[in-house]
């Protein structure tokens, strides 16, 4: 089945990870709608600049992009008809704060400690991605003008935490991190290479090269793109169904999706101390230990399942250096855990194995399920976002640095929330009880958890226990947004949404 997407109608951030197109800077704005008529007019004005998913040629690439989404209360403020509003799913209606018990946002991640902006009512999310900070700023100035022109219709909310720990910024900036020579890198603040294994779905371009390890695993061991409806409303999903999260009328939902926005603070000092302490008792190098936490080596993203110790990593690096561009991509993404069901190479609790277990939830029982990834293919998300802030002192946790995490999916509850709750903060599906994933888990300072790094079964060796895991990531804000199609944006702006 091949599917042609209506690229002119779909917002570009759904189909493209802008970071992969040299957009190294981003700015996120949040607004409140104070007047329905003027608010819709503002949405109409912004829609003229909204970036679609149309393919870019080298000379047609914009210097800045703009995308827009709405919270449930935002759609209320825009005066969508009640019948349409009632078609939105529970979790979207409740918003991220209301879901804190599902997401495990407790302790230092509790919404009461979030940036001040999240104590306000947020209606609109606006994103600008730019090839330079100047391009971002130019688009930002244009948006400020539209806000002014709305004449009190919308208000730009301030309250993002800045460098001085004051929650006084009117926007959230994000940027790739640069190496010592000033070259952009795909790193985040813990030093990991990020954004390698994003999901691939039917209708995206250049599928053949990208689908390996990123689509769904077939019984014969091949990879196919996931069904479009996992990521876009109005399209058939992996259950041969249309996403049940779509509001009416059809045109309001079609080609739209849901986005999770989360500001995640990284406790860099705790991470570094934890890694140092644990590596003293770990049988292997410190970098191997860091690789076992995430499932990928920090320096180049080598999957630890194919480079499970220092010697094999050296070999992997040699092959990687000798490979061409396509070969390198393949080495990074094309793998399964079929030969590592016990987790001796890549621990079962490693980050990338928890969030995308590939075929491993079949536990090596051949043909147990309809497809090897039967329990996985409906839990995938599209990852977007960039790091924010700078680490000034790698021994400290405070400061303003982390990741702006964005996830796109057709069903927040079934996809993002499920992964967050069941696979990061809990592990029954992995037969690891309540053991949380090391990097993202909401570890409890009073009662810190552990994970087991398995070894070769029958080898007589003891597995390695990683104990006293501190909370390495803290939520600092976020919400759930509806990302309408461009048609739907025009309908909302025109006040012509009618579900009858």
């Amino acid at each position: 089945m091949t599917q042609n997407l209506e690229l002119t109608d779909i917002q570009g951030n759904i189909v493209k990870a802008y970071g992969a197109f040299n957009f190294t800077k981003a700015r996120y704005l949040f607004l409140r709608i104070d007047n329905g008529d003027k608010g819709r007019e503002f949405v109409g004005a912004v829609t003229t600049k909204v970036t679609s998913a149309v393919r870019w040629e080298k000379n047609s690439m914009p210097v800045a992009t703009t995308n827009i989404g709405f919270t449930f209360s935002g759609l209320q403020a825009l005066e969508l008809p009640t019948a349409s509003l009632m078609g939105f799913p529970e979790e979207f209606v409740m918003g991220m704060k209301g879901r804190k018990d599902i997401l495990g946002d407790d302790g230092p991640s509790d919404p009461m400690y979030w940036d001040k902006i999240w104590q306000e009512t947020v209606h609109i999310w606006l994103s600008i991605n730019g090839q330079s900070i100047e391009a971002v700023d130019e688009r930002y100035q244009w948006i400020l003008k539209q806000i002014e022109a709305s004449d009190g219709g919308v208000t730009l909310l301030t309250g993002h935490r800045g460098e001085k720990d004051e929650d006084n910024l009117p926007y959230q900036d994000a940027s790739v991190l640069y190496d010592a020579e000033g070259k952009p890198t795909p790193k985040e603040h813990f030093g990991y290479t990020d954004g390698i294994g994003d999901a691939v779905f039917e209708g995206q371009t250049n599928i053949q090269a990208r689908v390996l390890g990123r689509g769904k695993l077939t019984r014969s061991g091949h990879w196919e793109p996931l069904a479009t409806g996992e990521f876009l409303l109005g399209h058939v999903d992996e259950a041969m169904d249309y996403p049940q999260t779509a509001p009416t009328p059809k045109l309001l939902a079609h080609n739209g999706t849901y986005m999770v926005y989360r500001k995640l603070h990284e406790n860099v000092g705790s991470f570094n101390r934890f890694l140092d302490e644990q590596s003293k008792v770990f049988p292997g190098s410190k970098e191997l230990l860091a690789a076992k936490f995430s499932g990928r080596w920090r320096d180049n993203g080598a999957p630890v399942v194919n480079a499970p110790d220092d010697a094999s990593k050296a070999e992997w690096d040699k092959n990687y250096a000798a490979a061409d561009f396509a070969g390198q991509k393949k080495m990074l993404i094309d793998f399964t855990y079929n030969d590592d069901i016990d987790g001796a190479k890549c621990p079962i609790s490693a980050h990338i194995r928890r969030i995308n277990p590939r075929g491993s939830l079949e536990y090596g029982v051949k043909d147990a399920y309809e497809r090897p990834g039967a329990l996985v293919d409906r839990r995938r998300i599209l990852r977007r976002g960039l790091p924010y802030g700078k680490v000034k002192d790698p021994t400290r946790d405070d400061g303003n640095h982390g990741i702006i995490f964005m996830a796109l999916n057709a069903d927040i509850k079934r996809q993002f929330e499920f992964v967050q709750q069941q696979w990061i903060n809990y592990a029954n599906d992995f037969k690891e009880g309540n053991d949380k994933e090391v990097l993202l888990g909401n570890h409890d300072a009073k009662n810190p958890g552990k994970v087991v790094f398995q070894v070769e079964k029958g080898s007589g060796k003891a597995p390695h226990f990683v104990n006293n895991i501190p909370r390495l990531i803290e939520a600092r804000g976020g919400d759930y947004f509806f990302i309408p199609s461009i048609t739907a944006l025009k309908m909302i702006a025109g006040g012509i949404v009618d579900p009858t």
Partner: protein
Amino acid sequence: MSNIAGKAYAMNVITPIRWYKVWINRLIFKIALSKPSTLKGLVTLSLIHYARWVIIPRDGFPHLDSSQPKENLNYAYMLFFSNFNGSWDQYVDSFTFAIPAGLDLFWKWNVRYPKSVPLSPFHKYIRHNQIDTSHYYNAYPMAASNDVKSAKKLKQALINFNAESASKTSEEFLADYNRLLNYLQHDFGEMRATPIVSLAAHAVKERYLKSHAAH
């Protein structure tokens, strides 16, 4: 009322089946029981404490007392009774994704069974025929089925180890101990409270605890 107790969810689904087709289902159950490989998907899912399918013939419902009016039923019924870990969605979805053919085999002869794929008609069918649980007691609310399996394995291994290690030298003891840890390396999952899979069920529980604390 709650279908949830700790990490367990109780599901009762009762679906009509034409009485003259009951024999087909009985035959299918018999084959499934005699060929365990037909259930390997279910077993691998490992989120089920108990699951049972029972056929209740048209005249098979209990008649407890002569004062109870006699019923004249048009259908026989299939009772599906299951105690599993996780939310309703997680369970029903796992079933549909992982073993759609097995579900269809068991329910195929039931009246208006829509097949397990696509998902939403199947969801509606189960919801429509589900009997909610009025009282549900769970002696080990923190134990998922996997926790129980691991605990049993760990207990037996420790008892054996204890019996065998008494007279060993310290080198032998260490080697044996490492072997023990290796054998148990998938059974060390921490057992703690369940994640909150349903905010509504959680609120019911909180209200209950609050009112009982007040008295």
